[in-house]
């Protein structure tokens, strides 16, 4: 008699009553993150800033090193470094280097400096993999509380400034002539991006967080007719990717963040196929 496949057992065993606490925490954390990656990912995609997000995420590792060195909370240090790095990047974009060349230089440099800084920390043995690829299963109740507050604040800000952020994204010059506070809105968007990256680094890692921003947004396009719909749909798709990735990771015992990204990529592929037919 053939042995039953392992996952048929597991799926029947796990219900909401006996779901392992670490999995429930991961699910809650991932869902909260998904609420924010949807709209912000859309804005990044529309502004052609995918690589910018990537560079920002890589710089987050410097924030991690700083946090470990000064014994600060990682999330806030990453946000702070992210904000500084974003402003430096914006200033450098005025130079004569092409944008993708500039990001191609800064992005791996930030990552390398981050790794070096973490290795130089005296007396600390840090699990680098946890920061590169995230460790969503290690998320605690306290983390979730911080995350929930951060996500709520960010969503309120996004809702309040959505039209203005959209106006600046669609046509910056027109927004300037219309009298929108364009520089301040762009700074706001950078800070929000730094915030979502800081929130996501612990869960998905610096190397993969941009995937959770970009892939759901690109996937959502096939199903929507307005920018707001796309932002909501992207959040929904992020959510499905997080749940699907967690489930696959648990059932097949594969690394969680790559499973989430693979789930998102599968959804993207399906959306393209549906869109074509």
């Amino acid at each position: 008699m053939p042995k039953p496949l392992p996952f048929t057992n597991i799926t029947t065993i796990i219900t909401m009553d006996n779901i392992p606490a670490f999995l429930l925490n991961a699910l809650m954390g991932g869902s909260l993150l998904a609420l924010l990656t949807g709209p912000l990912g859309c804005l990044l995609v529309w502004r052609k800033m995918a690589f910018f997000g990537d560079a920002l995420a890589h710089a987050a590792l410097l924030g991690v090193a700083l946090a470990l060195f000064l014994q600060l909370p990682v999330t806030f240090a990453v946000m702070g470094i992210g904000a500084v790095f974003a402003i430096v990047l914006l200033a450098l974009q005025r130079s004569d280097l092409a944008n993708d060349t500039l990001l191609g230089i800064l992005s791996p440099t930030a990552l390398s400096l981050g790794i070096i800084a973490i290795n130089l920390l005296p007396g600390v043995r840090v699990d680098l993999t946890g920061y590169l690829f995230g460790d969503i299963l290690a998320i605690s109740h306290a983390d979730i509380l911080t995350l929930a507050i951060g996500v709520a604040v960010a969503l309120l800000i996004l809702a309040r400034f959505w039209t203005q952020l959209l106006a600046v994204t669609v046509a910056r010059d027109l927004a300037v002539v219309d009298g929108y506070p364009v520089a301040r809105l762009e700074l706001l968007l950078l800070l929000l991006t730094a915030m979502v990256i800081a929130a996501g680094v612990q869960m998905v890692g610096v190397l993969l967080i941009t995937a959770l921003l970009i892939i759901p947004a690109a996937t959502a396009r096939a199903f929507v007719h307005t920018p707001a719909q796309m932002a909501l749909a992207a959040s929904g798709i992020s959510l499905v990717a997080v749940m699907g990735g967690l489930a696959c990771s648990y059932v097949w015992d594969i690394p969680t963040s790559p499973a989430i990204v693979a789930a998102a990529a599968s959804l993207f592929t399906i959306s393209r196929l549906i869109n074509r037919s």
Partner: protein
Amino acid sequence: MTEPLLSAHNIYVSLGGRDVLQDVSLALHPGEIVSLIGPNGAGKTTLLRTLLGLQAAHRGHVSRAPSLRLGYVPQKLNIDPLLPLTVQSFLQLWPGASASHIEGCLDITGAKHLATRPLQKLSGGEYQRVLLARALLNAPNLLVLDEPAQALDVHGQASLYELIGALARSTGCGVLVVSHDLHIVMRQTTRVICLHQHICCQGHPAEVERDPAYAALFGADAKAFALYQHHHDHHHG
């Protein structure tokens, strides 16, 4: 003469080490229809951007009358294909635009039927009419247009310029238009400005075409101006 709506005072702009504008001064008065011409790289777009506050002047300054209400029609928008945006929702991005106001402005430029179309799927002519409608939302007393007819065929160019001329006539609003063609300016043009890093000459089209500076700037190309004329070979419904 009335106070100018918008004026540049001895502005200098250099971009990437190149002096694009040198000591340019000009004043735009209410109701004037000004065509800005010049060879490629003459700094026409830079001058427009400086006047609009989109480009900082390294020396000199731009002043605006308190009564100035700008309507800006850019050359082309670069909107990501992944951004789902209809004409209507594009116009809604203007601060405080009501649905009826948007519909009215689209109607004026003959673009009402485009309201629910995605912005990225419009033809060149449709695009310009939508951009013009958006500029009208502000009830402008100065319309600034950057080569509005560039992507259009000859017939499309003529009818777009006719539309701009009719708008200027009916609202009394002034126009500053960068012309992509040296020899063709709007029929209603009250002043032509020849730009080549600095202002070479300016005046009524009839004066400028006799100006030695105009001949010197464009050499053999310096012919008399042709004016956009609207051919009434079709019926307006």
